[in-house]
């Protein structure tokens, strides 16, 4: 279980307890947190669960991107070097306290 903080582009904060094994994307969808669309349902086939990890230390701590994630991020709205696809961030106790920021929009 990890407490994940989701911050919308307009600054609205949401916190959710997300069970281990779920993705950060699923944590948002299951808790009705707006700002993450996840059109493809977690298949790394779209780029609509895009988030920024603004804290450098957290960004480095996350599991590295697998092949294909950066390719998908090329197609996201305003990708940056601290961008991740939240469907690829699998929750474990290690992620307790993670904060993700949403982009202005997903599509």
């Amino acid at each position: 279980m990890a407490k994940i903080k989701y911050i919308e582009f307009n600054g609205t904060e949401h916190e959710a307890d997300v069970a281990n094994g779920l993705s950060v994307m699923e944590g948002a969808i299951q808790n009705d947190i707006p700002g993450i669309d996840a059109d493809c349902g977690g298949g790394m086939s779209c780029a609509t669960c895009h988030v920024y990890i603004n804290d450098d230390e957290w960004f480095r701590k996350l599991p590295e991107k697998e092949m294909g994630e950066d390719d998908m991020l090329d197609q996201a709205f305003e990708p940056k070097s601290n961008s991740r696809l939240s469907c690829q961030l699998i929750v474990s106790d290690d992620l307790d306290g993670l904060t993700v920021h949403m982009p202005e929009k997903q599509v």
Partner: protein
Amino acid sequence: MIKTDVVIIGAGPTGLFCAHQLGIIGLKCEIVDNLDKIGGQCIELYPDKPIYDIPAVPKCTGEELTNNLIEQIKPFNFNFHLSDRVQELKNENNKWLVKTLNGKEFETPNIVIAGGVGSFEPRKFPTKSAEKYDGKSVLYSIKDKTIFKDKSVVIFGGGDSALDWAIELSNSSKVTLVHRRDEFRGTPASVQKIKELSDNNTIDLITKYSIKDVKGNGSLESVEIKSESGESKVIKADYVLGFFGLIMQLGPIAEWGLNLDKKTIPVNTENFETNKKGIFAIGDICTYPGKLKLILSGFHEGALAARGCFKYARPDEKYRFEFTTASSTIKDRLGVKE
């Protein structure tokens, strides 16, 4: 004006199998899809990815599934209207009048929305200023490459479309290729070619930059790009091209009064009709208690929606359930000779 029994919106697996079921029960349909090819997400998002949960098919790719579905509905000779989008619906005397973006018109008692998560459209530049030039000098696809001859063209993107066009246009235009990172997702041969063209100064390659603004006075003059650390550059541009892949947009469907719930359309599970008589929704776009976004669920939904369509298409006939193994009528429709 094309008169038909059913207009299907979306040529993904669900729409295709619904067409099959309509053909089996003797109804005609016309299929409209925004993509230039048949297959929907299966063909656009994962043509090569294996699917493992199609009943009785242990493993097949999105492309194989699509090809098999196309094969399965071939006997019915249904028309496809590709690269087109249903734009407008109007109800007149219990018939739906359907208009598409390309100006096609249908008259039908039934519409089946099998639209997935929406229609695929190119992702556009996030900059507001680019909208002014959209379709004129800011482009997301190329129809006529001769317009770029001897012009300054700035291309954004790191996939095959961006690389291929950069290579192609470098013969006759001044090409700048801008990408947000050093790696490219295009095929290795194209990436290699781009590096060569950059090394011998045939094209300008700028990485770790993205678009900031487009500028012009009536016509486009330049594009400003920014790095993440805040540096910016201005590049002369007659044309700006963006190749960021496709996104899915619900589009006009949102305006048809279908009580949308988070981009999905509520239906009843008896015949998958929406709150509007004669409009059905199946596949990923529909929602009901227990809904699973599986292709196999879409097949089931399409089969029931087809029977729902029968009622309005043949109001004076009673629908009779038949098996394909036994019915000679169905075998005739399929053109099967025994």
